[in-house]
């Protein structure tokens, strides 16, 4: 598409240079014969790669010239690159724009998703044109071999059964099929129910880890939930839907939901409102998940398929293919549930912190004025009702775990731990333990605490004492911690 656009606006050829890391580097200069939809090779060169295997260059360079109004297209171009970076977190993207400005999107992961495998077409997904093409190329002499060799997930048994049900003799030479017999074959293939669903290893989804990394990198949210649906198929085309939700942090709060759409790792940046994804996102009752569209959150939908169900030739919007839509809905529901859990947990902690603030502010005053009212010199001891203790104060972590002071929690029903990493850059690792009998049980498992971040957690269960343990995340990178334990008796 880009090559075609370059050619019709500048009439300049495309240059492609590529090597898979063997001894040759191939360079082509091409134009497209638009009428025949075929390449016109202007120039072809073979360059020698380095001899030493380790020094050999590998990669692909494609050079095209195109004319366009950058002033107009700039926001979309940058958005396109940002979104591309989001679903390709293993790629370094460098862009120098026509005004000479440099944009860099750095990789944050080194891993790439596994490359897709090549497969035959699935019988449910072929049309007459495809069958004719296969027949022209096939070396098979009978229908049984034809079915087995050229179609995905068709074995001996399935092929026999299908041909029998379709009423096609198994020793018919495929090349002898007349046009109306080919039409009939396609029809029977669609009607036959015995074909196994297509496998998804021909697809190249991002995977949950990479999607998470990409979203974290480009949106910098406070929370992200990702979910990859199980492979599924529509009309013989396998597909996988991947969904993510990003919340808070640098995700902007807009009047409406922020939606990012991707098809086979390509951002779809135009005509959002015509897309089935948009319809689905709008149809979801977000209030059920404790979120309203005006909150800062973004929905990311990636559809991966051998045939993306595009609605238009422009390949910008997805059509409402029921099987795909269902997977998108279920995927969004799953991540929305995770978000709802995150928000309600955060809300619980916020309420708890507010409670503690109120207790710590008012109880000492009640004690003070009650004592003065009663003519007593010393105010009563409120620590049986509420106690706050700083167990780590400006604590400098080392490479091994160090215990904090111990908080006696016997009197309190509600205990809350608050740990803060005050260091400017270095992360720490912390855990929280509770004493039961004579054993320290882990209440908050080992968690990394990055610079400036905090843990607020209400501890469940009844323990005699509470302590925090902390160490540096990486050797010789000490961090600085404060930790408090609060107890309320209720």
């Amino acid at each position, binding site marked *: 598409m880009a090559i075609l656009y370059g050619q019709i606006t500048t009439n300049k050829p495309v240059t492609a240079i590529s090597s898979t890391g063997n001894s040759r580097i191939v360079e082509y200069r091409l134009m497209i014969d638009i009428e025949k939809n075929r390449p016109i090779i202007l120039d072809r060169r073979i360059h020698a790669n380095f001899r030493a295997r380790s020094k050999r260059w590998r990669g692909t360079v494609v050079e095209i010239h195109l004319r366009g109004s950058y002033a107009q297209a700039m926001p979309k171009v940058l958005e396109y690159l940002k979104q591309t970076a989001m679903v390709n977190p293993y790629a370094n993207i460098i862009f120098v724009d026509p005004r000479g400005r440099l944009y860099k999107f750095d990789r944050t992961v080194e891993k790439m998703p596994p490359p897709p495998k090549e497969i035959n077409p699935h019988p449910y997904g072929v049309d007459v044109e495809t069958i004719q093409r296969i027949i022209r190329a096939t070396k098979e002499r009978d229908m049984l071999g034809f079915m087995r060799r050229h179609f995905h997930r068709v074995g001996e048994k399935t092929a026999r059964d299908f041909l029998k049900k379709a009423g096609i003799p198994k020793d018919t030479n495929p090349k002898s099929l007349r046009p109306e017999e080919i039409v009939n074959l396609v029809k029977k293939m669609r009607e036959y129910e015995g074909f196994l669903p297509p496998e998804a290893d021909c697809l190249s989804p991002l995977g949950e880890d990479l999607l998470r990394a990409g979203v974290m990198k480009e949106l910098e949210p406070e929370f992200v939930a990702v979910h990859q649906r199980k492979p599924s198929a529509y009309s013989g085309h396998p597909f996988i839907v991947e969904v993510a939700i990003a919340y808070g942090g640098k995700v902007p709060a807009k009047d409406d939901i922020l939606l990012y759409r991707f098809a086979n790792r390509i951002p779809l940046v135009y005509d959002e409102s015509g897309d089935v994804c948009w319809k689905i996102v709008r149809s979801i009752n977000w209030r059920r998940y404790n979120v309203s569209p005006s909150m800062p959150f973004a929905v990311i939908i990636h559809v991966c398929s051998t045939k993306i169900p595009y609605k238009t030739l422009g390949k910008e919007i997805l059509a409402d293919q029921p099987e795909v839509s269902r997977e998108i809905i279920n995927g969004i529901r799953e991540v929305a549930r995770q978000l709802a859990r995150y928000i309600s947990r955060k809300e619980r902690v916020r309420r708890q912190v507010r409670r503690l603030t109120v207790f710590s502010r*008012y109880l000492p005053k009640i004690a003070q004025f009650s004592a003065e009212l009663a003519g007593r010199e010393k105010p009563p001891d409120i620590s049986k009702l509420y106690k706050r203790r700083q167990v780590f104060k400006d604590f400098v972590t080392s490479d091994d775990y160090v215990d904090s002071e111990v908080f006696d929690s016997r009197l309190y029903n509600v205990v809350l731990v608050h740990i803060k990493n005050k260091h400017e850059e270095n992360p720490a690792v912390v855990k929280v333990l509770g004493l039961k009998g004579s054993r320290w049980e882990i209440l908050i498992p080992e968690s990394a605490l990055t610079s400036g971040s905090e843990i607020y957690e209400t501890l469940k269960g009844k323990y005699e004492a509470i302590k925090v343990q902390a160490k540096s995340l990486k050797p010789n990178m000490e961090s600085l911690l404060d930790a408090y334990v609060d107890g309320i008796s209720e």
Partner: protein
Amino acid sequence: MTYKRNNARTVDLKSIVQKKLEEMGARFCTEINRGMFPTVRMKSRSTDNIFYSQKHRQYILGDRTVTRSSRNIAHLRPFTQMVWTAYFVHELLRQKKTSTLRDVYYSAQAYDIFFKDQSESDNIITDLETAIEHSRESFNVFPEERSAVFGDLTIQYTVPGYENRRMNLSSHPDGVMIGPALTDARFIETSADKVIVIEKGAMFTRFVEERVYEKFNAILIYTAGQAPRSTRYFIRRLNRELDLPVYIFSDADPWGMHIAMVIISGSANAAHLRELTTPDAKWAGVWASDIIDYKLPSEKLNERDLKRLKELKVDPRYNDDLWQKQIDIFMKLKKKCELEAFSRYGLTHIVDRYLPERLKELGA
């Protein structure tokens, strides 16, 4: 002239209140030391717990109670505010100082106690009244508004710096302001045999000028519209301690009627208190029937007046022949008039003719 001495045993209300406050503080200390969150129980002041009592002839609170607990996060702030308020008024009592609602609101800030506006602090003071079952005047928080009294009544101050000093309330022709000092003063003796309460300042001055206190042997009180609580308390004391009948003169309209009624039977807002009413006081005028009988210049009742009359008609405090009859006449006439309307017949007409006739009619 016969002098009446005050023989009523004056109970030292202030020291009772002071003791109650101290007990409250001591209880909280004990509870906290035992690891219990302190609580306060008081009668509910919500409208569904306010009832009219025929026996007390005022609104009273029912049996429903509310508990305010320092365990409850939503109660903690008002609880603290109340403990502070208790502490603050206890200090007032201890140092024999007085304050006002507004003053209390500002004083809180010095103790790092925060009220978001005065209505919040006023509410807390009402809570404290309810909890210890005494009015705020008994813990030295007095209203801002001041009314006045004039007449032959000798009082003796109890406030610091004036202890045992005596004064006669006829010593100043503008009347003596009913402030904290007078509210707490002891009544020593009087030659008066009645109390006349007047809503309007102009009429109060006229009554003093026309020597009503002498001609009718009365103590005159000017309420300046709706009587402040300390004035209601003062009228009650005159009635209770000196056994003086009380006659109230207000404008002939629903609002004037209600000024008289609040002195007699109190308001629903003060249903938690028993020290502010004078059930035996009488509304002496101006009645709706007086508009006809005395041919008084009048104005038409407006929509608001009529709406108010309908409310009063069904108000349990107005369930009495005189009140009901006057309300009916108002509704029929659709007219109202002010105390000053008598001036149409000359400045002294109200004193020379109306007052003696009315007092006679009421058996004074």
